């Protein structure tokens, strides 16, 4: 991008819980005891993300650690990865590739988590 300040890099760390099987989900939201399985680095435009999501707006500006960083890390569960990618995509293009209900539901979850209202409405309409 031509504007340095507006461009940033986001690192998405995808982690798996220790116990992948069965109903071991009780630990799935506690990252401290999970392992990072994959790190993905993306170039994102912080103004676009901030405009679409209060989460990203605060992330880039509220004075905590990330406000000063050019590399910002989001930790997500492996199961959320595809949906997050779709969500990021939506924030740029206002469109989703997913059309099936389970995927749409995952995207809706992600949109709700990061408060991307436009995407939440979009998914609700599609469902």
């Amino acid at each position, binding site marked *: 991008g031509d504007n340095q300040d507006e461009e940033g890099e986001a690192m998405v760390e995808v982690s798996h819980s220790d116990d992948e099987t069965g*109903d071991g*989900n*009780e*630990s*799935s*939201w*506690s*990252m*401290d005891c999970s392992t990072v399985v994959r790190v993905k680095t993306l170039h994102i435009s912080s103004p676009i993300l901030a405009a679409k999501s*209060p*989460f990203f707006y*605060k*992330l880039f500006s*509220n*004075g*905590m*650690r*990330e*406000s*000063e960083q050019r590399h*910002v*890390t*989001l*930790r997500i569960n492996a199961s959320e990865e595809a949906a997050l990618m779709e969500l990021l995509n939506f924030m740029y293009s206002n469109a989703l590739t997913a059309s099936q*209900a*389970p995927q749409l*539901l995952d995207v809706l979850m992600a949109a*709700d*988590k990061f*408060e991307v209202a436009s995407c939440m409405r979009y998914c609700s309409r*599609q*469902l």
Partner: protein
Amino acid sequence: MSNQKKRNFQIDAFKHRVVVDPKYADKTWKILEHAIHEIYNHNASGLSFEELYRNAYNMVLHKFGEKLYNGLVATMTSHLKEISKSTEAAQGDSFLEELNRKWNDHNKALQMIRDILMYMDRTYIPSVHKTPVHELGLNLWRDTIIHSSKIQARLQNTLLELVQRERTGEVIDRGLMRNIVKMLMDLGSSVYQEDFEKPFLEVSAEFYSCESQKFIECCDCGDYLKKAEKRLNEEIERVTHYLDSKSEVKITNVVEKEMIANHMLRLVHMENSGLVNMLLDDKFEDMGRMYNLFRRVPDGLSTIREVMTSHLRETGKQLVTDPERLKDPVEFVQCLLDEKDKYDSIISNAFNNDKAFQNALNSSFEYFINLNARSPEFISLFVDDKLRKGLKGVSEEDVEIILDKVMMLFRYLQEKDVFEKYYKQHLAKRLLSGKTVSDDAERSLIVKLKTECGYQFTSKLEGMFTDMKTSHDTMQGFYASHLELGDGPTLVVQVLTTGSWPTQPGVTCNLPAEMSVLCEKFRSYYLGTHTGRRLSWQTNMGTADIKATFGKGQKHELNVSTYQMCVLMLFNNDDRLGYKEIEQATEIPTADLKRCLQSMACVKGKNVLRKEPMSKDIGEEDTFFVNDKFTSKFYKVKIGTVVAQKESEPEKQETRQRVEEDRKPQIEAAIVRIMKSRRVLDHNNIIAEVTKQLQSRFLANPTEIKKRIESLIERDFLERDSVDRKLYRYLA
């Protein structure tokens, strides 16, 4: 289609995530609790927003919202308790500064806490109807700090004391005041009102009650008003600097009530400096201040207006009934105009051109002008004076201004018909003596009268102008056909149409032989060209220019009245003449003759005659002879008649009688008009309606109306009801 899809998908995927080990919830909360501590300790920049948000999100997602919320309340409360302790410990002036600093810290912390708990704020809190994080933070601040027993009263006293210090002239930290007041407002309008505004208003009322008491004992009215205005402005300024703008009305109400409303009557009536003195001395600034302050309180302006009105009526009454003033009608009217100018200027400069004040001014003038029955005559005399001599060298616009002012006085008159009567007389005199200065001004006034009185009145006045023009042409024709008259005396006749002029029938005198010959020639010339007319001489209205040679050969041209000419011509044949002889020879009416002799024998500088015995008055035994020693530095000498410019008592009575006579047909016409449309009407209602119809012309006398009704009954226009004698019926 979408309905079908929806049905297929339940949110099963989440179900198995509902039950989660509380150990993990505890652990996650510990992370967040630690973060809140760090935030209060100014270490927020070391915390990961992403991590904290994710943790809070997970807690809510996994149904630990309540644990999160309660944890927040407990943690924040404990921090605020710490803050409360340190604020309480602050000494003296540093108390407010400390409170302000901690408030800023709390606000910043609250903002960040809200950021990391954004998900809870958005989803959990509305679903369980709890207080949102920001509001919660404010409420906890209010309850833990502002309303803590050790702070609440201290804060209030500190604020009120600062205001008090500022009122006594000290400079205080307004920025700090503004921040603290803003804090109270942020905590809710009821906090601002209860913890500050209410006691502030109470203390202020007490302060201004005392202060105004002090001021009113030692200040004059003008100074008091200055002080009150200053205080009012200070309070308004205080509000803009550091109070809620809604407080402005409330605090100004306090000042208005304590400083103005409570002392209003004492102020306007203050001895030697109250409103009457301001009016007398044209204190525009003080009166303007009084107006602007009093308008803020109930009945304020009506109080000013009443004092002004009663003063104006009183002074006006004195003016129009002062016998000294009545001696000079021109000055009398000038005084009225000056008074009007004075009050116009007061109302426009000090009373904001207030319509109600203008109305009060008008009704006051109407009241006192009509207290003097001679006002109509005097106003006409004033116009007469202006049109005779007063307007020479005055620009056209200034003439208009003077005439407009006269018309304004005219409008106040109740007896407009009396004015008209006099106006006609005075105009006739001006025209016949050739004394009118400006034809334009005369006509301009007639146009103004036309709009006020209607065409009927002015058409006669216009007829007078036409007669003047026609007479000029007639005289040219007369002399063109009598070329042999070139050497003798010159006669100028003005032929006046009966009805247009205020002529008096049958007043005539014996003209000198030279003149009566000429008059006869004119009569035959005029009647020869105008058949079917009658001429009668109005010798009381004419003037003459005569050449006189006195004892030592001094020659003068004398400008005299026709009567005076008749008298003087007698001395061509006799050296000495007694009063009786003159009266017999001229047949001039006694009053006119006395006046005319007086003007020629008793006025210094105009005394072409002498009399024995020498005295100021004319006696019937007096003897008259030519004053051989008469001198004047002018060749032309104008000998005025000693006319009391205003009418004498009998003349006044006569005019009055003619006015009453003229009113009769007008009253009858009004009665007939009313009865024609109403058919049946009782006595009182007729009187009321007739009075109303005629009031733009004059105030009809009820007794006269009754007489007119009786006369109409006699002439079969009306009849009395056979049962109710108070009822009249119109007979078609």
